[in-house]
Protein backbone atom coordinates (compact mmCIF):
# COMPACT_ATOMS: atom_id res chain seq x y z
CA UNK A 1 0.00 0.00 0.00
CA UNK A 2 0.99 3.62 -0.45
CA UNK A 3 2.38 5.39 2.57
CA UNK A 4 0.13 7.96 4.21
CA UNK A 5 1.51 11.20 5.63
CA UNK A 6 0.56 13.12 8.76
CA UNK A 7 -0.65 15.96 6.51
CA UNK A 8 -2.94 13.66 4.51
CA UNK A 9 -4.43 12.15 7.65
CA UNK A 10 -4.94 15.60 9.20
CA UNK A 11 -6.70 16.73 6.03
CA UNK A 12 -9.08 13.79 6.40
CA UNK A 13 -9.64 14.63 10.08
CA UNK A 14 -10.48 18.24 9.16
CA UNK A 15 -12.89 17.00 6.49
CA UNK A 16 -14.52 14.63 8.96
CA UNK A 17 -13.51 11.66 6.82
CA UNK A 18 -10.81 10.03 8.91
CA UNK A 19 -11.31 6.43 9.99
CA UNK A 20 -10.39 6.17 13.66
CA UNK A 21 -10.44 3.02 15.78
CA UNK A 22 -9.22 2.23 19.27
CA UNK A 23 -6.31 -0.19 19.66
CA UNK A 24 -8.75 -2.71 21.11
CA UNK A 25 -10.93 -2.40 18.00
CA UNK A 26 -7.90 -2.66 15.72
CA UNK A 27 -6.87 -5.95 17.32
CA UNK A 28 -10.29 -7.35 16.47
CA UNK A 29 -10.28 -5.83 12.98
CA UNK A 30 -6.89 -7.23 12.04
CA UNK A 31 -7.86 -10.65 13.36
CA UNK A 32 -10.85 -10.54 10.97
CA UNK A 33 -9.50 -8.73 7.89
CA UNK A 34 -5.75 -9.00 8.11
CA UNK A 35 -3.13 -6.29 8.50
CA UNK A 36 -3.05 -5.28 4.84
CA UNK A 37 -6.75 -4.46 4.61
CA UNK A 38 -6.89 -2.82 8.04
CA UNK A 39 -3.91 -0.61 7.16
CA UNK A 40 -5.71 0.61 4.04
CA UNK A 41 -8.94 1.38 5.90
CA UNK A 42 -7.73 2.88 9.16
CA UNK A 43 -6.12 6.30 9.49
CA UNK A 44 -5.61 6.60 13.24
CA UNK A 45 -5.43 4.14 16.14
CA UNK A 46 -6.07 5.50 19.64
CA UNK A 47 -4.44 4.06 22.74
CA UNK A 48 -4.83 4.72 26.45
CA UNK A 49 -3.38 4.11 29.88
CA UNK A 50 -4.29 5.17 33.42
CA UNK A 51 -1.87 4.22 36.16
CA UNK A 52 0.33 5.59 38.95
CA UNK A 53 3.25 7.48 37.35
CA UNK A 54 5.63 8.74 40.02
CA UNK A 55 7.82 10.90 37.82
CA UNK A 56 5.09 13.52 37.43
CA UNK A 57 4.65 17.04 38.66
CA UNK A 58 3.54 20.53 37.82
CA UNK A 59 5.13 23.93 37.72
CA UNK A 60 3.36 27.14 38.58
CA UNK A 61 3.75 30.88 38.45
CA UNK A 62 1.67 32.40 41.23
CA UNK A 63 1.94 36.09 40.35
CA UNK A 64 3.50 38.76 42.58
CA UNK A 65 2.35 40.00 45.98
CA UNK A 66 2.72 43.46 47.50
CA UNK A 67 5.44 43.80 48.56
CA UNK A 68 7.12 41.20 46.40
CA UNK A 69 8.68 37.99 47.69
CA UNK A 70 11.26 35.67 46.17
CA UNK A 71 10.36 32.15 47.32
CA UNK A 72 13.17 30.40 49.09
CA UNK A 73 10.95 27.64 50.41
CA UNK A 74 7.33 26.99 49.44
CA UNK A 75 4.50 24.69 50.55
CA UNK A 76 1.19 23.93 48.85
CA UNK A 77 -1.34 22.44 51.28
CA UNK A 78 1.70 21.80 53.50
CA UNK A 79 3.42 19.73 50.79
CA UNK A 80 6.82 21.19 49.96
CA UNK A 81 7.48 22.28 46.37
CA UNK A 82 10.79 23.16 44.76
CA UNK A 83 11.51 26.88 44.83
CA UNK A 84 14.94 26.96 43.22
CA UNK A 85 13.56 28.88 40.24
CA UNK A 86 12.60 32.52 39.64
CA UNK A 87 10.81 34.49 42.38
CA UNK A 88 7.28 33.09 42.30
CA UNK A 89 7.81 29.96 40.21
CA UNK A 90 7.72 26.53 41.87
CA UNK A 91 7.70 22.89 40.83
CA UNK A 92 5.54 20.46 42.78
CA UNK A 93 6.50 16.80 42.51
CA UNK A 94 3.90 14.03 42.69
CA UNK A 95 5.72 12.09 45.40
CA UNK A 96 6.47 15.04 47.70
CA UNK A 97 5.19 14.59 51.26
CA UNK A 98 4.43 17.01 54.09
CA UNK A 99 7.31 17.32 56.56
CA UNK A 100 4.97 16.15 59.35
CA UNK A 101 4.04 12.90 57.54
CA UNK A 102 5.04 9.93 59.71
CA UNK A 103 6.40 8.22 56.56
CA UNK A 104 7.25 4.59 57.34
CA UNK A 105 7.91 5.13 61.04
CA UNK A 106 4.88 3.02 61.79
CA UNK A 107 5.41 0.57 58.94
CA UNK A 108 3.60 0.34 56.58
CA UNK A 109 2.93 4.08 56.34
CA UNK A 110 -0.27 5.24 54.66
CA UNK A 111 0.96 8.33 52.77
CA UNK A 112 -2.55 9.67 52.51
CA UNK A 113 -1.70 13.10 51.10
CA UNK A 114 1.22 14.14 48.91
CA UNK A 115 2.10 16.14 45.81
CA UNK A 116 -0.18 14.06 43.59
CA UNK A 117 -3.12 14.81 45.84
CA UNK A 118 -2.35 18.54 45.71
CA UNK A 119 -2.37 18.36 41.91
CA UNK A 120 -5.72 16.54 42.02
CA UNK A 121 -7.11 19.21 44.38
CA UNK A 122 -5.85 21.96 42.05
CA UNK A 123 -7.65 20.48 39.02
CA UNK A 124 -10.74 19.85 41.18
CA UNK A 125 -10.72 23.67 41.53
CA UNK A 126 -10.33 23.49 45.32
CA UNK A 127 -8.64 26.39 47.14
CA UNK A 128 -5.04 25.52 47.96
CA UNK A 129 -3.05 27.00 50.82
CA UNK A 130 0.22 28.62 49.72
CA UNK A 131 2.92 29.25 52.29
CA UNK A 132 6.36 30.53 51.37
CA UNK A 133 9.46 31.94 52.98
CA UNK A 134 11.91 34.38 51.43
CA UNK A 135 15.14 35.80 52.77
CA UNK A 136 14.40 39.35 51.78
CA UNK A 137 16.23 41.32 49.11
CA UNK A 138 16.07 44.93 47.97
CA UNK A 139 13.88 43.88 45.05
CA UNK A 140 11.91 41.21 46.94
CA UNK A 141 11.61 42.52 50.50
CA UNK A 142 8.83 40.24 51.83
CA UNK A 143 10.08 37.38 53.98
CA UNK A 144 6.97 35.30 54.31
CA UNK A 145 3.55 34.86 52.81
CA UNK A 146 0.52 32.79 53.68
CA UNK A 147 -2.47 32.87 51.36
CA UNK A 148 -4.91 30.80 49.30
CA UNK A 149 -4.66 30.20 45.57
CA UNK A 150 -6.81 28.45 42.98
CA UNK A 151 -5.94 27.00 39.60
CA UNK A 152 -7.81 29.69 37.68
CA UNK A 153 -6.06 32.54 39.52
CA UNK A 154 -2.44 31.55 38.94
CA UNK A 155 -0.65 32.76 35.81
CA UNK A 156 0.55 29.39 34.59
CA UNK A 157 0.02 25.86 35.82
CA UNK A 158 1.71 23.26 33.64
CA UNK A 159 1.79 19.52 34.16
CA UNK A 160 5.32 18.44 33.27
CA UNK A 161 6.07 14.78 33.81
CA UNK A 162 9.68 13.69 33.24
CA UNK A 163 8.79 10.00 32.92
CA UNK A 164 5.37 8.62 32.03
CA UNK A 165 3.72 5.89 30.02
CA UNK A 166 6.25 3.11 30.53
CA UNK A 167 6.24 0.98 27.41
CA UNK A 168 6.01 -2.23 29.43
CA UNK A 169 6.44 -3.07 33.07
CA UNK A 170 7.36 -5.84 35.45
CA UNK A 171 4.85 -8.28 36.80
CA UNK A 172 5.80 -8.03 40.49
CA UNK A 173 5.84 -11.00 42.84
CA UNK A 174 7.26 -11.80 46.27
CA UNK A 175 9.06 -15.10 46.87
CA UNK A 176 10.03 -14.06 50.41
CA UNK A 177 8.42 -14.93 53.73
CA UNK A 178 6.93 -11.56 54.68
CA UNK A 179 4.42 -9.22 53.06
CA UNK A 180 6.07 -6.48 50.98
CA UNK A 181 4.71 -2.95 50.59
CA UNK A 182 5.94 -1.67 47.25
CA UNK A 183 5.19 0.79 44.48
CA UNK A 184 3.62 -2.26 42.84
CA UNK A 185 1.14 -2.58 45.70
CA UNK A 186 0.95 -5.05 48.57
CA UNK A 187 2.78 -8.24 47.58
CA UNK A 188 1.90 -11.23 49.71
CA UNK A 189 4.58 -13.67 50.85
CA UNK A 190 5.40 -16.97 49.12
CA UNK A 191 4.07 -15.87 45.71
CA UNK A 192 0.71 -14.94 47.22
CA UNK A 193 -0.18 -12.60 44.36
CA UNK A 194 1.23 -11.03 41.19
CA UNK A 195 0.70 -7.36 40.28
CA UNK A 196 1.15 -5.83 36.84
CA UNK A 197 0.72 -2.30 35.59
CA UNK A 198 0.16 -1.66 31.92
CA UNK A 199 -2.97 -1.74 29.82
CA UNK A 200 -1.38 -4.32 27.48
CA UNK A 201 -2.99 -4.15 24.05
CA UNK A 202 -4.20 -0.58 24.76
CA UNK A 203 -0.86 0.66 26.12
CA UNK A 204 0.52 3.56 24.03
CA UNK A 205 4.18 2.61 23.66
CA UNK A 206 3.49 -1.11 23.21
CA UNK A 207 1.54 -0.08 20.12
CA UNK A 208 4.35 1.89 18.47
CA UNK A 209 7.21 -0.12 19.92
CA UNK A 210 9.84 1.09 17.44
CA UNK A 211 8.89 4.77 17.78
CA UNK A 212 7.99 5.08 14.09
CA UNK A 213 5.36 7.75 14.79
CA UNK A 214 5.83 9.08 18.34
CA UNK A 215 8.31 11.87 18.99
CA UNK A 216 8.86 15.43 20.14
CA UNK A 217 5.66 17.29 19.33
CA UNK A 218 3.24 14.37 19.27
CA UNK A 219 -0.11 15.73 20.48
CA UNK A 220 -1.72 13.55 23.14
CA UNK A 221 -4.59 13.20 25.60
CA UNK A 222 -3.07 14.19 28.95
CA UNK A 223 -5.01 14.27 32.20
CA UNK A 224 -8.24 15.08 30.35
CA UNK A 225 -6.72 17.94 28.34
CA UNK A 226 -4.42 18.25 25.38
CA UNK A 227 -0.73 17.68 25.98
CA UNK A 228 2.44 16.97 24.09
CA UNK A 229 5.33 14.57 24.07
CA UNK A 230 8.29 16.88 24.69
CA UNK A 231 11.18 14.43 24.91
CA UNK A 232 11.87 10.82 25.75
CA UNK A 233 11.23 10.10 29.41
CA UNK A 234 13.98 9.47 31.92
CA UNK A 235 15.20 5.86 31.99
CA UNK A 236 14.24 5.51 28.30
CA UNK A 237 15.74 2.13 27.44
CA UNK A 238 13.98 0.97 24.30
CA UNK A 239 16.06 -2.12 23.64
CA UNK A 240 14.47 -5.47 22.88
CA UNK A 241 14.55 -7.87 25.83
CA UNK A 242 14.98 -11.64 25.59
CA UNK A 243 11.42 -12.82 25.07
CA UNK A 244 9.82 -16.27 24.93
CA UNK A 245 10.14 -18.11 21.64
CA UNK A 246 7.55 -17.03 19.10
CA UNK A 247 6.83 -13.70 20.78
CA UNK A 248 7.11 -10.67 18.46
CA UNK A 249 10.28 -8.71 19.32
CA UNK A 250 8.71 -5.78 21.16
CA UNK A 251 11.00 -3.34 22.98
CA UNK A 252 10.09 -2.85 26.62
CA UNK A 253 11.68 0.12 28.33
CA UNK A 254 10.70 3.23 26.40
CA UNK A 255 9.25 6.17 28.33
CA UNK A 256 7.90 9.64 27.59
CA UNK A 257 8.34 13.13 28.99
CA UNK A 258 4.99 14.88 28.57
CA UNK A 259 3.66 18.38 29.16
CA UNK A 260 0.28 20.08 29.09
CA UNK A 261 -1.80 22.95 30.45
CA UNK A 262 -3.01 21.87 33.90
CA UNK A 263 -5.94 24.28 33.58
CA UNK A 264 -7.49 22.00 30.93
CA UNK A 265 -7.22 18.89 33.07
CA UNK A 266 -9.63 17.16 35.44
CA UNK A 267 -9.54 15.10 38.64
CA UNK A 268 -11.14 12.32 36.65
CA UNK A 269 -7.81 11.82 34.85
CA UNK A 270 -5.29 13.06 37.42
CA UNK A 271 -5.70 11.28 40.70
CA UNK A 272 -3.66 11.52 43.91
CA UNK A 273 -2.59 8.01 44.81
CA UNK A 274 -1.32 6.42 48.04
CA UNK A 275 0.76 3.25 47.94
CA UNK A 276 0.76 1.61 51.37
CA UNK A 277 4.27 1.46 52.84
CA UNK A 278 5.72 3.13 49.75
CA UNK A 279 4.54 6.70 49.27
CA UNK A 280 2.26 9.14 47.52
CA UNK A 281 2.11 9.54 43.77
CA UNK A 282 -0.16 10.61 40.91
CA UNK A 283 -2.21 8.41 38.61
CA UNK A 284 -2.16 9.93 35.14
CA UNK A 285 -4.43 9.32 32.18
CA UNK A 286 -2.61 9.37 28.84
CA UNK A 287 -3.83 8.58 25.36
CA UNK A 288 -1.72 8.68 22.22
CA UNK A 289 -2.99 8.60 18.65
CA UNK A 290 -0.97 6.47 16.26
CA UNK A 291 -1.24 7.44 12.60
CA UNK A 292 -1.40 4.36 10.37
CA UNK A 293 1.31 5.56 7.99
CA UNK A 294 1.90 2.11 6.56
CA UNK A 295 1.31 -1.59 7.06
CA UNK A 296 4.18 -1.98 9.50
CA UNK A 297 2.74 0.64 11.86
CA UNK A 298 -0.60 -1.15 11.61
CA UNK A 299 1.00 -4.52 12.33
CA UNK A 300 2.60 -3.35 15.57
CA UNK A 301 -0.47 -1.39 16.68
CA UNK A 302 -2.58 -4.51 16.29
CA UNK A 303 -0.58 -6.89 18.50
CA UNK A 304 -3.00 -8.52 20.95
CA UNK A 305 -2.59 -9.24 24.68
CA UNK A 306 -1.62 -12.81 23.83
CA UNK A 307 1.53 -11.59 22.01
CA UNK A 308 2.65 -8.99 24.54
CA UNK A 309 4.72 -10.21 27.47
CA UNK A 310 5.73 -8.88 30.88
CA UNK A 311 8.75 -10.16 32.80
CA UNK A 312 7.97 -11.63 36.23
CA UNK A 313 10.27 -9.97 38.77
CA UNK A 314 10.83 -10.92 42.41
CA UNK A 315 10.56 -7.89 44.70
CA UNK A 316 11.84 -9.81 47.73
CA UNK A 317 15.47 -10.06 46.63
CA UNK A 318 16.11 -9.38 42.96
CA UNK A 319 14.52 -5.94 42.54
CA UNK A 320 15.76 -4.11 45.68
CA UNK A 321 19.29 -5.43 45.20
CA UNK A 322 19.30 -4.76 41.44
CA UNK A 323 19.98 -8.40 40.63
CA UNK A 324 19.50 -9.28 36.99
CA UNK A 325 17.18 -11.97 35.75
CA UNK A 326 13.52 -12.70 36.14
CA UNK A 327 11.21 -15.62 36.86
CA UNK A 328 10.14 -15.88 33.22
CA UNK A 329 7.59 -14.05 31.10
CA UNK A 330 3.81 -14.02 31.11
CA UNK A 331 1.52 -12.67 28.41
CA UNK A 332 -1.02 -9.94 29.14
CA UNK A 333 -3.71 -12.43 28.13
CA UNK A 334 -2.53 -14.72 30.93
CA UNK A 335 -2.26 -11.80 33.36
CA UNK A 336 -5.79 -10.67 32.55
CA UNK A 337 -7.17 -14.18 33.02
CA UNK A 338 -6.62 -13.71 36.76
CA UNK A 339 -4.14 -16.56 37.31
CA UNK A 340 -0.61 -17.27 36.15
CA UNK A 341 1.80 -20.11 36.79
CA UNK A 342 5.12 -19.23 38.46
CA UNK A 343 7.59 -21.91 39.52
CA UNK A 344 4.77 -24.44 39.24
CA UNK A 345 2.51 -22.45 41.53
CA UNK A 346 -0.78 -20.93 40.49
CA UNK A 347 -0.70 -17.26 41.52
CA UNK A 348 -3.65 -14.82 41.44
CA UNK A 349 -2.98 -11.66 39.41
CA UNK A 350 -4.22 -8.10 39.80
CA UNK A 351 -3.55 -4.92 37.83
CA UNK A 352 -2.57 -1.52 39.22
CA UNK A 353 -3.39 0.09 35.90
CA UNK A 354 -7.09 0.67 35.23
CA UNK A 355 -8.06 -1.07 32.00
CA UNK A 356 -11.53 0.47 32.32
CA UNK A 357 -10.07 3.98 32.28
CA UNK A 358 -7.55 3.10 29.56
CA UNK A 359 -10.42 2.02 27.33
CA UNK A 360 -12.38 5.16 28.19
CA UNK A 361 -9.38 7.34 27.23
CA UNK A 362 -8.92 5.55 23.89
CA UNK A 363 -12.62 6.17 23.16
CA UNK A 364 -12.53 9.85 24.18
CA UNK A 365 -9.47 10.46 22.00
CA UNK A 366 -11.18 8.65 19.12
CA UNK A 367 -14.20 10.92 19.58
CA UNK A 368 -12.07 14.09 19.67
CA UNK A 369 -10.44 13.10 16.37
CA UNK A 370 -13.72 12.10 14.73
CA UNK A 371 -15.19 15.49 15.70
CA UNK A 372 -12.23 17.20 14.05
CA UNK A 373 -11.16 19.00 17.21
CA UNK A 374 -7.91 17.10 17.70
CA UNK A 375 -5.32 17.05 14.92
CA UNK A 376 -2.23 14.88 14.89
CA UNK A 377 1.03 16.56 15.85
CA UNK A 378 3.80 15.53 13.49
CA UNK A 379 6.97 15.00 15.50
CA UNK A 380 9.84 17.37 14.75
CA UNK A 381 12.10 14.56 15.91
CA UNK A 382 11.33 10.90 16.61
CA UNK A 383 12.42 9.32 19.89
CA UNK A 384 15.37 6.94 20.09
CA UNK A 385 14.30 3.36 19.37
CA UNK A 386 15.97 -0.03 19.78
CA UNK A 387 18.64 0.88 17.18
CA UNK A 388 19.94 3.76 19.29
CA UNK A 389 21.76 1.25 21.48
CA UNK A 390 20.87 2.95 24.74
CA UNK A 391 21.82 0.91 27.79
CA UNK A 392 21.07 1.70 31.44
CA UNK A 393 23.76 3.41 33.46
CA UNK A 394 24.00 2.62 37.13
CA UNK A 395 24.89 4.60 40.21
CA UNK A 396 28.11 3.32 41.71
CA UNK A 397 29.20 4.05 45.27
CA UNK A 398 32.45 5.99 45.15
CA UNK A 399 34.44 7.95 47.67
CA UNK A 400 33.85 11.61 46.83
CA UNK A 401 37.25 12.55 48.24
CA UNK A 402 35.64 15.49 50.03
CA UNK A 403 36.88 14.32 53.41
CA UNK A 404 40.48 15.01 52.38
CA UNK A 405 39.88 18.56 51.28
Amino acid at each position, binding site marked *: MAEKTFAEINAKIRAGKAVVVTAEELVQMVAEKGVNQAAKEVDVVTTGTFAPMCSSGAYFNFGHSVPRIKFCRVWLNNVPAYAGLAAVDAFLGATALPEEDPLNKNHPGEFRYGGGHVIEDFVARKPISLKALGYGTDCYPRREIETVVTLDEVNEAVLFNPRNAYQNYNCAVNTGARTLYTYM*GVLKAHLGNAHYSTSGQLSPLLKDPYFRTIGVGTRIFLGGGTGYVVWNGTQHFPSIPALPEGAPPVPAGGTLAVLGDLKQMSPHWLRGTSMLGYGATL*SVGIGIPIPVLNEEVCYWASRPDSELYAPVVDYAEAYPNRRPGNLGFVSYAELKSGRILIQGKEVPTAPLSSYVKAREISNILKQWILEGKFLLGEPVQLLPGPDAGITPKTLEIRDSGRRNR
Partner: protein
Amino acid sequence: MAPSKVVLRFPAAIADKPIIFHLVKDYDLMINILKANINPHKEGTMVLDVVGEKTEAGLEFLRRQGVGVQPLTEDIVRNEERCTHCGACTAICPTGALYLDRPAMFVRFDSEACVVCQLCVRACPMQAMEVRF
Protein backbone atom coordinates in the same frame (compact mmCIF):
# COMPACT_ATOMS: atom_id res chain seq x y z
CA MET B 1 -18.22 -7.76 77.86
CA ALA B 2 -16.88 -9.61 74.84
CA PRO B 3 -18.47 -8.79 71.51
CA SER B 4 -20.88 -11.41 70.25
CA LYS B 5 -19.81 -11.10 66.59
CA VAL B 6 -16.14 -11.38 65.74
CA VAL B 7 -14.05 -11.50 62.58
CA LEU B 8 -11.33 -14.16 62.68
CA ARG B 9 -8.29 -14.28 60.43
CA PHE B 10 -6.42 -17.57 60.17
CA PRO B 11 -2.80 -17.48 58.96
CA ALA B 12 -2.10 -20.01 56.20
CA ALA B 13 -0.01 -22.18 58.56
CA ILE B 14 -2.93 -23.02 60.84
CA ALA B 15 -5.83 -22.91 58.38
CA ASP B 16 -6.09 -26.71 58.28
CA LYS B 17 -6.03 -27.25 62.07
CA PRO B 18 -9.17 -27.99 64.11
CA ILE B 19 -9.52 -24.82 66.16
CA ILE B 20 -13.14 -23.74 66.35
CA PHE B 21 -13.94 -27.19 67.78
CA HIS B 22 -12.10 -26.20 70.99
CA LEU B 23 -14.43 -23.24 71.54
CA VAL B 24 -17.28 -25.68 71.91
CA LYS B 25 -15.48 -28.50 73.71
CA ASP B 26 -13.18 -26.62 76.09
CA TYR B 27 -14.97 -23.28 76.56
CA ASP B 28 -18.57 -24.44 76.34
CA LEU B 29 -19.46 -21.75 73.82
CA MET B 30 -22.38 -21.74 71.44
CA ILE B 31 -21.11 -20.68 68.09
CA ASN B 32 -22.76 -19.76 64.84
CA ILE B 33 -20.54 -19.48 61.76
CA LEU B 34 -21.97 -16.60 59.71
CA LYS B 35 -19.35 -16.56 56.98
CA ALA B 36 -16.29 -18.67 56.41
CA ASN B 37 -13.60 -18.88 53.80
CA ILE B 38 -11.05 -21.45 54.89
CA ASN B 39 -8.82 -23.39 52.52
CA PRO B 40 -5.77 -25.52 53.24
CA HIS B 41 -2.48 -23.57 53.17
CA LYS B 42 -4.22 -20.27 52.51
CA GLU B 43 -5.04 -17.35 54.75
CA GLY B 44 -8.62 -17.84 55.92
CA THR B 45 -11.35 -15.65 57.34
CA MET B 46 -14.46 -16.34 59.37
CA VAL B 47 -17.26 -14.30 60.90
CA LEU B 48 -18.47 -15.91 64.07
CA ASP B 49 -21.37 -15.29 66.45
CA VAL B 50 -20.27 -16.41 69.93
CA VAL B 51 -22.46 -16.84 73.03
CA GLY B 52 -21.36 -18.16 76.43
CA GLU B 53 -19.82 -17.22 79.78
CA LYS B 54 -16.29 -18.08 78.72
CA THR B 55 -16.38 -16.04 75.49
CA GLU B 56 -13.43 -13.86 76.43
CA ALA B 57 -11.33 -16.88 77.47
CA GLY B 58 -12.27 -18.61 74.22
CA LEU B 59 -11.22 -15.60 72.14
CA GLU B 60 -7.98 -15.43 74.10
CA PHE B 61 -7.40 -19.08 73.20
CA LEU B 62 -7.85 -18.17 69.52
CA ARG B 63 -5.32 -15.35 69.79
CA ARG B 64 -2.81 -17.74 71.37
CA GLN B 65 -3.23 -20.01 68.35
CA GLY B 66 -2.25 -17.11 66.08
CA VAL B 67 -5.80 -16.29 64.94
CA GLY B 68 -6.49 -12.58 64.46
CA VAL B 69 -9.62 -11.56 66.38
CA GLN B 70 -11.52 -8.32 65.93
CA PRO B 71 -15.07 -7.27 66.71
CA LEU B 72 -17.54 -7.01 63.85
CA THR B 73 -19.10 -3.63 64.43
CA GLU B 74 -18.32 -2.07 61.11
CA ASP B 75 -19.18 -2.17 57.45
CA ILE B 76 -17.03 -1.51 54.41
CA VAL B 77 -18.38 0.75 51.70
CA ARG B 78 -16.88 1.73 48.39
CA ASN B 79 -16.71 5.39 47.41
CA GLU B 80 -17.76 5.00 43.78
CA GLU B 81 -16.46 8.45 42.89
CA ARG B 82 -12.93 7.60 44.00
CA CYS B 83 -12.70 4.06 42.64
CA THR B 84 -10.83 4.01 39.33
CA HIS B 85 -11.31 0.26 38.77
CA CYS B 86 -7.57 -0.28 38.83
CA GLY B 87 -7.84 -3.68 40.51
CA ALA B 88 -5.09 -3.32 43.12
CA CYS B 89 -7.46 -4.58 45.84
CA THR B 90 -8.55 -7.74 44.07
CA ALA B 91 -5.64 -10.02 44.90
CA ILE B 92 -5.51 -8.62 48.47
CA CYS B 93 -9.16 -9.25 49.41
CA PRO B 94 -9.12 -12.65 51.14
CA THR B 95 -12.77 -13.53 50.42
CA GLY B 96 -13.13 -12.47 46.80
CA ALA B 97 -15.63 -9.77 47.79
CA LEU B 98 -13.60 -7.40 45.60
CA TYR B 99 -13.10 -8.97 42.19
CA LEU B 100 -12.56 -8.13 38.54
CA ASP B 101 -15.48 -8.60 36.22
CA ARG B 102 -13.72 -10.07 33.17
CA PRO B 103 -13.18 -9.33 30.33
CA ALA B 104 -14.47 -5.76 30.82
CA MET B 105 -12.19 -5.46 33.91
CA PHE B 106 -14.56 -3.48 36.13
CA VAL B 107 -13.88 -3.95 39.85
CA ARG B 108 -17.02 -5.24 41.58
CA PHE B 109 -17.68 -5.19 45.32
CA ASP B 110 -19.90 -7.89 46.77
CA SER B 111 -20.58 -6.60 50.28
CA GLU B 112 -22.29 -9.89 51.19
CA ALA B 113 -18.95 -11.67 50.85
CA CYS B 114 -17.04 -8.99 52.81
CA VAL B 115 -15.82 -9.98 56.28
CA VAL B 116 -14.66 -6.45 57.17
CA CYS B 117 -11.02 -7.48 57.52
CA GLN B 118 -10.22 -3.94 56.27
CA LEU B 119 -7.17 -4.98 54.24
CA CYS B 120 -8.61 -3.11 51.24
CA VAL B 121 -9.02 0.11 53.24
CA ARG B 122 -5.27 0.57 53.45
CA ALA B 123 -4.29 -1.23 50.26
CA CYS B 124 -6.57 0.82 47.97
CA PRO B 125 -4.29 3.40 46.30
CA MET B 126 -7.25 5.72 45.72
CA GLN B 127 -8.55 5.56 49.32
CA ALA B 128 -11.89 4.50 47.90
CA MET B 129 -12.70 1.85 50.52
CA GLU B 130 -14.16 3.28 53.71
CA VAL B 131 -15.15 1.89 57.10
CA ARG B 132 -18.67 2.79 58.17
CA PHE B 133 -19.39 2.42 61.88
